[in-house]
């Protein structure tokens, strides 16, 4: 009796999970992970791992003891305050300027204007140029014997060569960096805004037009509010990138206009101190995170405002 009772459930257990089925199911379950694996491995090896390393570099000495000495070293350095000031100044001037410029460009590209594709191609040129190359192009313009000075002299507007990029002229130096950065990096904001404009159904603008809105009122009351998600993305992305501004600054000013990223580079390469460089990198990360958080809160888009076509 007892042996019969124990064997029957065993037999049932064997019947239910058919081996071929089980194997097939396991394969379908693994497929997404297999597909994700290359990207995941890449991210871990080249991003997550170095990031951890950088974090540890900033808070641990060579012997493995925890320390805040590198942060103190960073803060007490004479260049630190200037780097922060310059970076923030660049952000508060560059980002609004680029947002407005990019919006005008995007609206122009989204209009029925004849020859708008010419503008698209012209504006896309900086997209194909590396930031260091862009810096060198603008150096050729602002250098002592650069294009700008040659032009000013040949048109008789000036009889001496002006040192635009000299540390004695911080304003012209700053303006040169701003111009170069504006030229180099406005396209990314423009592309995001053009994409955003293209998904807004034209009926909204038409309805506003029928109900009496002028071009300006349509922009203010309809297009801009509907473009808010794209504006938000563009703003976050452009500000984060502005915290990392580097190659153009280095190419145009060398060390005369210290910014956060150039200081990180300088500590790493000039002073052979990767620990303070890592502290700078962490500071940039912290700024970016806080800034993104503030943007997301300030430009919050209610769920009920989106999601209808």
């Amino acid at each position, binding site marked *: 009796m007892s042996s019969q009772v124990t064997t029957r459930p065993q037999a049932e257990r064997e019947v239910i999970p058919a081996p071929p089925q089980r194997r097939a199911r396991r394969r379908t379950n693994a497929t997404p992970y297999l597909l994700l694996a290359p990207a995941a491995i890449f991210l871990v090896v080249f991003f997550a791992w170095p990031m951890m390393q950088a974090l540890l570099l900033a808070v641990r000495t060579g012997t493995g003891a925890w320390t805040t000495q590198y942060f103190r070293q960073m803060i007490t350095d004479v260049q630190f305050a200037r780097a922060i000031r310059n970076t923030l100044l660049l952000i508060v001037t560059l980002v609004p300027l680029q947002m407005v410029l990019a919006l005008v460009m995007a609206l122009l590209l989204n209009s029925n204007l004849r020859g708008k594709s010419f503008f698209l191609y012209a504006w896309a040129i900086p997209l194909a140029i590396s930031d260091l190359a862009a810096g060198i192009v603008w150096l050729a313009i602002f250098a002592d014997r650069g294009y700008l000075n040659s032009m000013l002299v040949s048109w008789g507007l000036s009889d001496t060569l002006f040192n635009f990029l000299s540390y004695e002229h911080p304003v012209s130096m700053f303006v040169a960096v701003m111009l170069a950065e504006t030229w180099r990096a406005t396209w990314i904001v423009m592309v995001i805004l053009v994409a955003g404009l293209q998904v807004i159904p034209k*009926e909204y603008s038409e*309805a506003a037009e*029928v*109900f009496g809105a002028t071009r300006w009122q349509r922009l203010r*009351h309809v297009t801009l509010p*509907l473009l808010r998600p794209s504006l938000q993305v563009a703003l976050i992305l452009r500000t984060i990138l502005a915290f990392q501004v580097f190659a153009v600054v280095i190419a145009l000013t060398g060390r005369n206009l210290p910014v956060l990223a150039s200081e990180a580079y300088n500590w790493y390469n000039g002073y052979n101190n990767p620990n303070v460089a890592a502290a700078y990198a962490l500071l940039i990360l912290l700024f970016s995170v806080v800034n993104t958080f503030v943007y997301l809160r300030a430009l919050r888009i209610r769920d*009920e405002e989106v999601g209808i076509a």
Partner: protein
Amino acid sequence: MAEILIQNITKTYAGGKQPAVNDVNLTIRDGEFMVLLGPSGCGKTTLLRMIAGLEYTDAGQISIGGRDVTDLPPRKRQIAMVFQSYAVFPHQTVFENIAFGLRMRKERDADVKRKVERSAALLQLEPYVERYPAQLSGGQRQRVAVARAIVMEPKVLLMDEPLSNLDALLRLHFRADLKKLVQDLKATTIYVTHDQVEALSLGDRIAVMRQGEVIQCSSPMAVYDRPATEFVGSFIGNPPMNFLRGRVERTNGHVHVTLHEHVLTAPPELAQHAGRDVLIGIRAENIEAEARETPDNLPARTEVVEPLGSHLLVTAAIGDQRLKLLTRTDFPAQPDGPLWLRPEPDKLRWFEVDTGREIGPTPQQRTEA
């Protein structure tokens, strides 16, 4: 007064082979409800958008209330419009949506509030004024779009298939509401639709369009009863008008048409078509069916019987030509059984085979409502 005068309006879209709207002339009287009806691609929406000012015209003139508006932007035409997609602003509450036009006019806040509340009440939107469009159903959004238009107290109201995105039951319900609203508004209304039932039920007059041209413009009953072409007859009515081929013959000065060895008396206008084929048009409800043979009736064969509740819809064959007719529900129709048909003589319409045009009354008689 807001009579709309459309003269020789033509529009060809860039890259279009044929004009979307081709030399259209139309007068919409003050306070009239005009329906532009036609299949998709017939140019009805393009015509409406040109009246709104949302499309440029290639040629011709549009005037509203005696004022030439052909080259005016939409906001200077003093119109209101309901869009097919509603185009209710998703970032504004229902209240702000309805108030949009009033705010553009810079009306005082107190007036805006009073008017918006009245329109919201008319369209049963009071509980939703603080909501966002995404929190509303399709029917509610549609009502917001209508409220936004009527709050303007417009002289001219344009509607582009406003009911086509609603489900069938809601559409039927809202159609009557809409008719009442527009009657009370007393605005000159142009309503675009491809739904012939909507056109018949709403319009004071219907302009039937095809391939960019207005084929017929008359009262709903006239369009239904006296279609100007075979196309109009087959587009309007459910089931569409039956068209049978017959041959015009003339004996002893009398004109008649033979249809599958049977003779129908024909009006004298058909005399000039003697010896040629014509199309005989007759509506399903204008054919009487008999279960027994009588001398004057057309013998036919029942093919399909479809009970519709109020009627039977019978598909019958005369020779190799098919037609549909409505009978009482107690009619003893049997598939493949014989039946005898008697079309009402004064409901017979005659059309040219090659052009599809009606033979008979002059075009003037047709256009008059």
